């Protein structure tokens, strides 16, 4: 009996793997428009166009640099098991960092050209702060510490999937390191990051001065999640009470690059979901 069960699970795993491979291949071979960046991603968020900060980062970059693109909400992962990823004609590129590098070369983007080497260095360091530190706090809050799992429920995940996802998030965050801290410590680390980002932005219009740069895409991608998509969290309270310049900053980028923001969010109504 046990052997039959094990064999059954093994067969299901192999079949699942083959279906996924077929789906991935069929997604890549689909008849997409030429000379248009095809962005493969999960789907709309309730209060931001995506619950993934990396999707917001990428789309903001595409909009900032007026690169034609089309979203495909197929929920198919890249070859690296992540999302978003892109196709551009015959090229397939995963990971937002490498996608932006590719687009910079392909479209000869010069948005960072006026920055000094020191400014570029500072921009790079803050990008890592938000993507390699603050991001893990966001994941821990949403998947583990938010008792209601508000955002994940609003995108339609049921209790069983949420239970599995919490286990997975705990494991991944433990491996990364931040998952070893307590809830109080995690919230403090998030708060510290937000405070430092707020102090650095100060009264500036954009992250590195009067003009937007590539760094703004990464910073906005992460910050918009905290400003609009961590409802009823201590971080949301801190931003509204203490770090209001983060709200002003996000509103500025949203008005400039996302005039259609409200059309792209579901507000929890999954009939609006893409």
């Amino acid at each position, binding site marked *: 009996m046990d052997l039959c069960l094990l064999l059954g699970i093994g067969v299901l795993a192999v079949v699942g793997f083959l279906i996924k491979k077929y789906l991935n291949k069929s997604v890549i071979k689909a008849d997409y428009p030429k000379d248009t960046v095809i962005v493969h991603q999960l789907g709309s968020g309730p209060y931001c166009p995506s619950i993934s900060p990396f999707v917001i980062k990428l789309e903001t970059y595409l909009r900032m640099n007026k690169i034609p693109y089309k979203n495909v909400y197929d929920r198919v992962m890249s070859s690296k098991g992540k999302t978003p990823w892109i196709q551009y004609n015959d090229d397939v590129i995963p990971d937002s960092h490498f996608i932006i590098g590719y687009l910079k070369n392909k479209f000869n983007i010069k948005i960072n050209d006026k920055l000094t080497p020191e400014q570029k*260095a500072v921009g*790079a*360091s803050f990008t*890592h*702060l938000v993507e*390699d530190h603050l991001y893990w706090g966001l994941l821990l809050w949403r998947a583990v510490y938010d008792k209601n799992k508000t955002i994940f429920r609003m995108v339609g995940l049921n209790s069983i999937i949420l239970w599995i996802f919490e286990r997975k998030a705990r494991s991944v965050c433990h491996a*990364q390191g931040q998952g070893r801290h307590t809830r109080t410590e995690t919230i403090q680390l998030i708060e510290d990051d937000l405070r*430092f980002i707020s*102090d*650095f932005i100060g009264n500036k219009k954009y992250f590195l001065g009067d003009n937007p740069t590539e760094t703004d895409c990464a910073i906005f991608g992460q910050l918009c999640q905290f400003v609009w998509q961590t409802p009823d969290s201590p971080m949301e309270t801190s931003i509204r009470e203490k770090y209001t310049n983060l709200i002003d900053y996000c509103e500025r980028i949203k008005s400039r690059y996302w005039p259609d923001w409200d059309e792209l969010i579901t507000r929890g109504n999954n009939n609006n979901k893409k």
Partner: protein
Amino acid sequence: MDGKATIIVHQFGRGPFCPSFTPFGVKLETYLRMANIKYTNVNDCKVSKKGKMPWIEFNGQEVNDSSFIIEFLNEKYKQDFNSHLSSSDKAVARAFQKMAEENLYWCMVLHRCVYDKQDWVCKALGVNRFLAWLFSRHIKSRAEQQGIGRHSFEEMVHIEEGDLKAMSEFLDTKKFFFGDKPCETDCALFGQLSQFRWQLPGTKGEYFVNEKYTNLREYCDRMMEMFWPDWDKCCSGDNEEKKEKC
């Protein structure tokens, strides 16, 4: 704080060319020396309740995670070596520290534990190849979960160079990262860079720090001279008697 506290630092053990194999060990000890806080090292390889090293006992109380330890000691001894920085510079300091500890660190670990073809770690630690192979699989899995382990070796080196170039350009001709005086953040950055400077033999990481972005090499030497006059005594080198085995 009256200075009579007993501080025991639990850590991995002396490295052959740095006082620790872990950048967080070098970070913590550099801070303790900067703060002139007396401490005793116990190289017992015992992990903290969070499963990490280094950690300290402060009058018998466990304090873990190098950043939390420094915050704790700053509070106890009423000191802050970043206090002279502007609020904007403190933010930049935070950003560079996180870049080094949450991203560059993983490149160092991958070089050492996954991509090392010279078995340098085996030889330095005196572990057998099977154990080293097991550990390599464990690290690869963790790096994949963190994210950087999903990239190819060339992509990882590209990311690593990006970080080191940023640090080099920010440091520029300054003596320390934020001016003529070292600050708390220098302990963290030196901790990470020291591994690239001295303990990643034959790797691209070593090449970047020692040959391409040479102001980082000079910075490391400066920090070593200032806080570690006994550096050579704190490294096990090839001396079997000095090597700390777990």
